Structure formats: C-alpha cells, structure tokens
C-alpha cells in the first residue's frame, strides 16, 4: 500500500499521540482523586486523634 500523503497521515499520527496523552491524563486524574481521598481520611484521623488526646 503506498504511503499516505502528509495531510492524511498527520491526522492518524496526531490521533495516536493524543490517545496516549489522554490515557496518561485520565490515569493522573484518577490518581489525584485517590490521593485527595487519602488526604481527607488522614485529616479525619488526625482530628480524631487530637480530640482523643485533648479529652485525656
């Protein structure tokens, strides 16, 4: 099969690299949500521990 002209091939190449970028971004977004949850839980536990220590 002959090579595609640049304007035609460019769309496919851009699509492939954008898919890769999108997957990385989705992964980072999911991990950011997980880390936010961990931070929230850690804050709750720290508040509770402080509350306990202040109550004696």
């Amino acid at each position: 099969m002959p090579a595609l002209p640049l304007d035609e091939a460019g769309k496919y190449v851009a699509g492939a690299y954008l898919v890769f970028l999108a997957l990385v971004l989705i992964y980072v977004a999911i991990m950011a949500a997980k880390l936010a949850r961990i931070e929230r839980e850690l804050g709750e536990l720290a508040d509770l521990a402080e509350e306990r220590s202040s109550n004696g």
Partner: protein
Amino acid sequence: MSLLSLRNLAVATAVLLAGGFALVFFHAPNDADQGFIQKIFYLHVPLATCALGGFVVAAVHAIRHLRTGDAIHDARAYVSIHISIIFGVAVLVTGSIWARASWGKWWVWDEPTLVSFLIVFLLYCTYYPLRFAIEDRDRQARYASVFAITAGAFVPLNFLAVRLAESLVHPRVFATAEGGMTGEMWLAFLTSLAGMALLWVTLVRFELVAKSASARISRLRRALDAEAPAGTRSRVAPSVPSTATTSG
C-alpha cells in the same frame, strides 16, 4: 521508596519522553516505505515492549512472593500487571490507528502480531476477577502469583510466535529487506523506549506509594477504632470491610 525519588523519576520521565518525541518529529527522517504514518511506530512499539516486559516483571515478583511469602512482592506483581494492562490498552488503540492508516482496516484477524497481543491482553484482564473472587487474603495472593507466573511464561511464547510467523503483513521496521532503520531513527526509537520504560516505572512506584498510604490509613483507622468508646466507633470505621482498601 521516597517521594523525592518518585519526583525525580517523574521529572526524568517527562524530560526523556519529551526529548524522545522531539527527536521523532524533528530529527528522525520519514520512512521511505510508509512515510509520515511510521511516526506511530515510535509510540506503539515502546508501549508494547513495556507492556509485555511489565508482565514478565510481574511474574518475577510473583515468584519472589511464592518463595518468600512477603506481601510486598504480591503488591508489586499486582501493580505491574495493572500498569501493563493500561499500557496494553494504549498499544491496542495506537495499533488500530496505525492499521487503519496502513491497511485501511482497524483490525486484521489473520495477522499473528495483533491477535497474539490481544490474547495476552485478554488473558491478563482475567487477573482481576480471579484475584478478587477469592476472599481469603493469603489464598488470593498465592493464586494471583501462580496466575502471574503462568501468564508471564506465555509472554515470551507470544513474542517467539510472532517472530516465527511467516506473515509480513505487520511492519517489520527493525529488519526489512531494504536494510532497516537509520541511525537517526534508532536514536529516536531508543530515547522513546527509555522514556516509556521510565514512565512505566514511575507509574508503578506512584501506585505503590498510594496503596501503601491507603493501607497505613486503614491500619490507623482500625487501631483508633479499637481504642474508641462503643458509641463513637461508627465514625472511625464505617461498615466497609477492612480488606476493601488494602486488597486492591
């Protein structure tokens, strides 16, 4: 596994991937046969190499888990498979885009390279239901390790089957009858491969750090729950199984 080294790793990954892609588009010449579309090769092949390599790494961790019984090796095997499956999705999508541009079809069922990779990918997709169908943590880890070793042994077979296959429909850019890649192409390819391998390592370590933090919080929650007066327990430990946060 400090956060500092993870940050350095992430910076190195970003620099290497950006450098690799810059070499792909501004340094490496267009392929004489495929033209500009061959630029997908510098993304697709490193992704596939890292995905398959990751499955083998998972098998090595699984062997270490079965030998030592240390749960950290099981966690590493699990995360290696997890990240390799994500890479596998990218391999299948970028491969399909390349196939559409080169052959005019999104998928070709009589091409051994594509089908064998799909089989390996689907095989590893069964890892999750197999693992989480078992409630007992020790048994879950042992069975998952056995799976990772067995499936990991299948990966080199997949590679050999592809190389031994006579079909030349799938592009063989490393060794074509015309002589293969030029020095500039090799430089771009190896830089992209190194960047992709670093990305794999970074994501694995990132995931392990997050899982470790999550597990520590669960332990802390249980410890505080044990100390709590009866009336306040529900606030510390809601009715979620304690394995839910640490098993995955």
